[in-house]
């Protein structure tokens, strides 16, 4: 097999803890009430087009895109719109949501609900992008960037490679792994659709070597396609980052502050490829996703296919309840996820996992002084000096932070993971990114 490829700089290898990798994807019953937030994507929130008391069906458009970088939202359930009001999101802020009381499960007529596999792609690139846009598809890895925007390279730029992200480098999470095992055929068709939309001839599926079953399964499926290649990668966090994955699979480096299209690459998650298949071939908008519910104390670590808008506590109940000694509930993986403040928050398009940490493992250590051991600098995948930039941000020297390329930080948490002094480096890096971002925007205006 030779030496496996990976990205060049830094990286760490935390305990994988993929507890739910053998748990097949389960369907969760439709909840009694669905809370559908209007801001589910990176960029502008969507605008509601239904009113209180309206009857909605599954897959019906309920909110329109509120700008260029914004997406449509479709009803994940059928029933009556209870109200359009503020409800709690993951961070505890109350933001506008459409709350629907569920009544039955009636689907919109336009959606093909049969289970047949449709492999012929008989529409053109423009229409594919239009359908993806209408279906409200966003990056399913967690960043929730609208997919159709990525499929339209800016003038003068062309895409050469499509890179499919099946890395799932976050510990604990297994939703992409299970998707590849169970929905491999659909994903391959989704990849073909994306290749047609982008007009590229070569696609790579990057999968880390800790998922040998997924690698062999996907290899089997793409055997007849010379243009799609499965690329096994060495296990290294944060390989799932766009820039790291491009470096690992095609050995190109995205320049600082630029997008992957600059080096002719477009990266999409396997979950996105599946959603694209459903949207283009089945006319089914993005109304459900696979969420991993896991944790060392969880009785039944599982992967669930849930409707968007299902409250988190329904998922936790399905995984046989909240363990007694839960200290922290994290939306996402342990490295980049954020802890949530309430179990009432709904699953949104970007929810890839719910991680329940025990009290002992969740609390932070007491911060000590920096001893300049430079472990953070060794592991930084972007080649930054986290100790210096975070200190600059902490002390308010945003000019220094900007000059030291704070905006290149991908907030992967590798630096903080290995810090022997337990300094909350990422906290200050995030603070610095917020402040430097504000300064840069005000400079532009």
């Amino acid at each position: 097999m030779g030496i496996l490829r990976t990205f060049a700089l830094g990286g760490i290898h935390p305990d994988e803890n993929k507890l739910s990798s053998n748990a097949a994807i389960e369907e969760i019953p439709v909840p009694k009430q669905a809370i559908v937030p209007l801001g589910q994507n990176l960029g502008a929130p969507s605008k509601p087009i239904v009113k209180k008391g309206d009857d909605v069906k599954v897959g019906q458009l309920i909110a329109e895109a509120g700008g260029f970088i914004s997406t449509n939202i479709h009803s994940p359930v059928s029933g009556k719109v209870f109200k359009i009001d503020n409800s709690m999101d993951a961070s505890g802020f109350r933001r506008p949501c459409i709350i629907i009381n569920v009544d039955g499960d009636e689907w919109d007529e336009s959606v093909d609900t049969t289970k047949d596999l449709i492999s012929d792609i008989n529409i053109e690139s423009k229409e594919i992008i239009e359908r993806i846009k209408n279906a409200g598809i966003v990056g399913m890895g967690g960043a929730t960037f609208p997919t159709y925007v990525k499929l339209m390279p800016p003038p003068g730029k062309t895409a050469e490679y499509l890179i499919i992200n099946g890395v799932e480098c976050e510990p604990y999470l297994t939703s992409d792994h299970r998707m590849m095992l169970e929905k491999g055929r659909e994903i391959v068709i989704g990849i073909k659709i994306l290749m047609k939309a982008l007009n590229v001839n070569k696609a790579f599926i990057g999968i880390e070597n800790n998922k040998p079953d997924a690698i062999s399964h996907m290899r089997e499926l793409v055997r007849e396609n010379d243009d799609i290649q499965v690329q096994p990668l060495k296990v290294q966090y944060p390989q799932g980052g766009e820039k790291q994955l491009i470096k690992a699979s095609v050995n190109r480096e995205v320049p600082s502050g630029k997008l992957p299209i600059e080096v002719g690459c477009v990266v999409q998650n396997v979950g996105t490829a599946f959603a694209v298949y459903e949207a283009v071939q089945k006319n089914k908008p993005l109304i459900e996703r696979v969420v991993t519910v896991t944790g060392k104390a969880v009785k039944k670590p599982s992967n669930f296919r849930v409707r968007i808008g299902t409250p988190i506590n329904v998922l936790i109940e399905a995984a046989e309840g909240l363990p007694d000694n839960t200290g922290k509930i994290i939306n996402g993986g342990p490295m980049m996820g954020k802890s949530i403040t309430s179990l009432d928050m709904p699953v949104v398009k970007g929810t890839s996992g719910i991680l329940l940490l025990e009290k002992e493992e969740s609390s932070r250590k007491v911060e000590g002084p920096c001893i300049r051991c430079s472990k953070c600098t060794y592991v930084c995948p972007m080649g930054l000096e986290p100790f210096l930039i975070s200190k600059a941000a902490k002390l308010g020297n945003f000019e220094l932070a900007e000059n030291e390329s704070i905006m290149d930080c991908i907030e992967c948490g590798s630096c903080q993971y290995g810090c022997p002094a337990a300094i909350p480096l990422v906290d200050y890096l995030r603070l610095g990114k917020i402040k430097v971002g504000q300064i840069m925007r005000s400079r532009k205006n």
Partner: protein
Amino acid sequence: MESAVDNIIIIAIGGLGGLGLIMAIILYFIANKFKVFEDPKIDEVEEALPSANCGGCGFPGCRAYAEAAVNSEKEHGNINGLNCPVGGNDVGQELGRILGLEVEDQDPMIAVVRCNGSPTNSPKKVNYEGATSCAFAHALYAGEGGCMYSCLGLGDCVDACDFDAIHMNPDTGLPVVNDKCTACGACVTACPRDIIELRKRGPKDKRIFVSCINQEKGAPAKKNCSVACIGCAKCDKVCNFDAITITSFLAYIDFEKCTLCRKCVEVCPTSAIHEVNFKPRKPRPEKPKVTTSVSDNSQNTVPSMESGKVKPDKSVIAKGIEIIETKE
């Protein structure tokens, strides 16, 4: 031998002295050529300023303010809109004297913290253990009590203050402003939630303000915090001076119009309106029925708890009890 040494000394002194003279002449001409005229008033004004270099006036330091003031006097004949909040009216008058202007007195201001969400009023629902920075915490989550407008209690305002005028109260977890406040506005800009506002100091430091900035509807606001403004508009109705406005379920008292009558404080059902530095209220005249029953005991000094308007004052009640005991 001796004469040779003398010669060397004389040559050295003469040579260096001559060189120095030539340089001095060159420098004299250069200095004249590139002379920058600076109004001597700028120095005088700078001298009169408090030299805090806090930036409260909107200029980067006292020198910049002095330049701006002198320029404004030259161009517009007044220094309206340029006031040094730290120096106050004394410095204002001094500047007027230097620049030969009539300077109007400004009302002294003070920073006011408009949140009362202590753990007692807004019980903790989650524990925060991230970086000690309000700006970061604000981007991360709503707050330990659940209110998304509440003070995060991590002290960005305290760090911003150059005058030792704002401190955290460890019991309530809220910042407290003391008399040293110069209204420079550093804490106002530092607060990511705009909780701190500059308000008029008021006569004898008496102030009335709504100690809440929660713009949610009454029910969710009250759910998270017992002293939140619920936008019931009772204060607006009772105000005779049109000083109270209600926007998005939040009352705001205009300190220019407020006459400090304290009517709004009494009617507020959640005690969200605060009065500061007022004398304790006189006991209200009791309702006729109650008066007849109580007057037999001649306990007029004891305020009636039934009225609900008067906060229980332990000293008075204790006194009352004492009276009863002596009578017996």
